C-alpha cells in the first residue's frame, strides 16, 4: 500500500462513520458505536485486505425475493457484492450481522453498492435489512447468531483446501463472540484441520449490549487464549491502517487471528455522554438528536 492508497482508505473509513452518523440522526437509531470502532477494519477489508474481484459497477439493493427453499433454489446471496468467486479470490464472511450498516456503507465507499442504497435500508420489502442475512449486500452466509460464522468459514476453508483453491477465507468478528463456546470449538477445529487459509480480524471494542465487556463477562487475555489454541495472533491498533495492512498480508503457518483493539467512540466523542451503554443509539430526546445533527453538520473529516 502506498501512502496515497492508505489516505484513500482512511477517507473511506471516515466516510463510513459519517454516513452511519447521518443515518442514525435521520432514523433516530442505529448501531453507531460499531461504525466508530470498525470503520478502518471494514474499509480495509474492502480496500484490498481481502482479495475480492472488482465489480463493473455498483449494484443496487433489491426487493426481498423470499427465503431459500425447495421452491426457490436460484437464490442469490450477498456474495455477489464481493465480485466473481474464483479459486484465487478470497471469501469474506461477516460474523456480527448487526454491523450491517457498517458493511453497507463500506460497500458504498468501495464502489460495490449504489450510493443511494441507504434510502432502502430497513425499508419494508427490501433486502438491505437492519440485521443482515445472506440475502443482504455483503453477506455471503447467514451469521447473526453469533459464533456460527467462524465454524461456517472453517467448513468453507476445508472445502477450498480439498478443491486445492488458493484463496483465503476472511472472517470479520466482534469480540463479544469470544464469550460463546462455539467460537472456541471452531478455533480448535480450524487449527486441528490445519486450515491456514483462514484469517480472522476482530473488532475488539470491549463493549456489548449490556455495557463494557468487563462488567458482563471478561474475555481477556484474548491474545493469549487464542494463541493457546494454536493460532498465530497479532494485536494491532484497529484504527491504524498501515499496521493493519502490514499484519494482514503476513503469510502464517497457522490460522491467523488479528485482534484490532478499537475505540467505540472514535471521531464521535459526544458518544461518551451515553456511557456506559454504547451498543445501540436511540436518542432519548429531540435535543440530544439535535446535538448529533449539529455534530454531523460540522463533520470535517
Amino acid at each position, binding site marked *: 500500500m502506498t501512502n496515497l492508497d492508505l489516505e484513500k482508505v482512511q477517507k473511506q473509513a471516515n466516510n463510513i462513520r459519517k454516513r452511519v452518523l447521518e443515518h442514525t440522526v435521520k432514523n433516530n437509531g442505529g448501531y453507531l458505536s460499531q461504525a466508530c470502532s470498525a470503520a478502518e477494519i471494514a474499509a480495509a477489508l474492502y480496500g484490498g485486505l481481502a482479495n475480492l474481484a472488482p465489480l463493473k459497477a455498483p449494484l443496487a439493493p433489491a426487493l426481498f425475493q423470499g*427465503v*431459500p*427453499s*425447495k421452491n426457490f*433454489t436460484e*437464490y442469490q446471496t450477498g456474495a455477489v457484492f464481493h465480485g466473481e468467486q474464483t479459486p484465487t479470490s478470497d471469501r469474506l464472511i461477516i460474523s456480527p450481522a448487526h454491523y450491517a450498516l457498517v458493511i453497507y456503507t463500506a460497500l458504498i465507499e468501495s464502489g460495490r453498492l449504489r450510493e443511494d442504497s441507504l434510502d432502502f435500508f430497513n425499508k419494508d420489502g427490501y433486502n438491505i435489512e437492519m440485521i443482515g*442475512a*445472506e440475502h443482504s449486500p455483503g453477506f455471503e*452466509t*447467514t*451469521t*447473526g*447468531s453469533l*459464533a*456460527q460464522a467462524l*465454524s*461456517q*468459514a*472453517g*467448513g*468453507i*476453508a*476445508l*472445502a*477450498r483446501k*480439498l*478443491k486445492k483453491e488458493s484463496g483465503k477465507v476472511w472472517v470479520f468478528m466482534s469480540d463479544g463472540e469470544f464469550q460463546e*463456546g*462455539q467460537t472456541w*470449538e*471452531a478455533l*480448535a*477445529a480450524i487449527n*486441528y*484441520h490445519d486450515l491456514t487459509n483462514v484469517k480472522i480480524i476482530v473488532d475488539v471494542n470491549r463493549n456489548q449490549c449490556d455495557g463494557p465487556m468487563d462488567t458482563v463477562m471478561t474475555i481477556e487475555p484474548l491474545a493469549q487464549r487464542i494463541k493457546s489454541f494454536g493460532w498465530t495472533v497479532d494485536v494491532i491498533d484497529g484504527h491504524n491502517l498501515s499496521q493493519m495492512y502490514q499484519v494482514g498480508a503476513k503469510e502464517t503457518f497457522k490460522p491467523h487471528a488479528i485482534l484490532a483493539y478499537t475505540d467505540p467512540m472514535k471521531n464521535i466523542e459526544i458518544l461518551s455522554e451515553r456511557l456506559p451503554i454504547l451498543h445501540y443509539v436511540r436518542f432519548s430526546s429531540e435535543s440530544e438528536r439535535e446535538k448529533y445533527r449539529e455534530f454531523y453538520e460540522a463533520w470535517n473529516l
Partner: protein
Amino acid sequence: MSSEIVSRPHVENFINWSKDKPKVLVLSADLTNSCEVGKWRDTYPERFFSMGMAEQNMVSFAAGLAREGFEPWLHTFAVFLYRRPLDQLQMSVAYPNLPVRFVGFLPGITTPGGVTHQAIDDVNVLRGVPNMTILETGDATEIESVLDVAHAIKGPVYIRMLRGEVSRLFDKSEPMQLNTARVLSEGSEITLLTSGITTEEAMRATKILRERGVEIQHLHISTLKPFEDPQVIAALHKAQKGIITMENHSVIGGLGSIVAELMAENAIGKPLIRIGLNDTYAHGASQKYLLNHYELDAMALIKKVEILCDKEFNISAEEIPSAREISVHSSAKVEAL
C-alpha cells in the same frame, strides 16, 4: 413372524454406496465406531473428518462444506444432532436449505443409555424447522436404501437411523421411497400407521388380530416430513372403527400428531389412538423391557385395538409371536450403549 437378522448393514452398504460419490464426506463427533463408520473412515480417510465432541461447530462446519458443493453426512447419536446444536442446525443449515445429512442414531428407546441418549422428541423438534426432510428407518432394507432417498434431496435431511442387529422386514427389491407408505396389510376396520421399530412390534400383533377376525389396514411410514402420501389419506378415510398410530417417540409432535393434523384438515372425524411415549422421558434399560414398560409393544397395540373394537380378544402373551431379543451386550455394537 420370521425375519432375517442382519448385523450392522450400514457398515458395508455405506462404503459401497459412497464409492462413486466423491463429494460425500463424513463428519463424526467421537462416536465413529458407535455409528458404524469406523470402516468407512479407514476406507476413505481423505473424506472423513473428526470434529471432536463439539457438535455446534460440526453442524456449522458442515454448512460451509455444503455451500462449497460437498455433501456432508454427520454421524452421531441423534440427541447430539438436534438438542445441543439446534440453533446451528437452523441458522447455518436449514435456513440456507443446504444438503447436510444428519444421521441420528439411537432413536427413542433403542438404547439402554437412558435419558441422555434417547431421542424421544426429535421429530417434534425438527418438524417445525422449515426446509427439513425427516426420514425414519424401520429395518435393514431401509437402512440400506435411505441413502439414495436422502441423496436425492437438495436440502437438509434428518434420518432416524438404526444400527447393530436389525431385522429385514422388507425385501431388498423394495427400497424406501420418499413420501410413500408401505402397505403391510389391507383391511377396513382399523387403520394402523407405524414407523421405525414399532412396525416390527405391530406386525407381531396384527397377525394374531387378523386371525381373530379384525380387519387392519397397516401402513409403515418412513417419511415423516413431508407427509403427503395420498395412500395415507385414503387409508384414514377407510377406517370404520378408528385409527391407531404407533411410534418410538413422544406422542406429542411425531407421527401421532401428524396424523391428527391430517385428519382434522381432511375432516376425518374418527377415534384416534396414539401409541408412543406419553409425554415422558424414559430411562436406561433393554429395548424389550422399555417397549413393554412404556406400552409401545405388541400387547399394548392389542389393548388399543380392543378399545376401538369394543371387544376383548383374550390374547395371551404366549400367543404373540416372540420378539427377537437384542442383547444389551450384542457384539454388533462397540459398546453396550
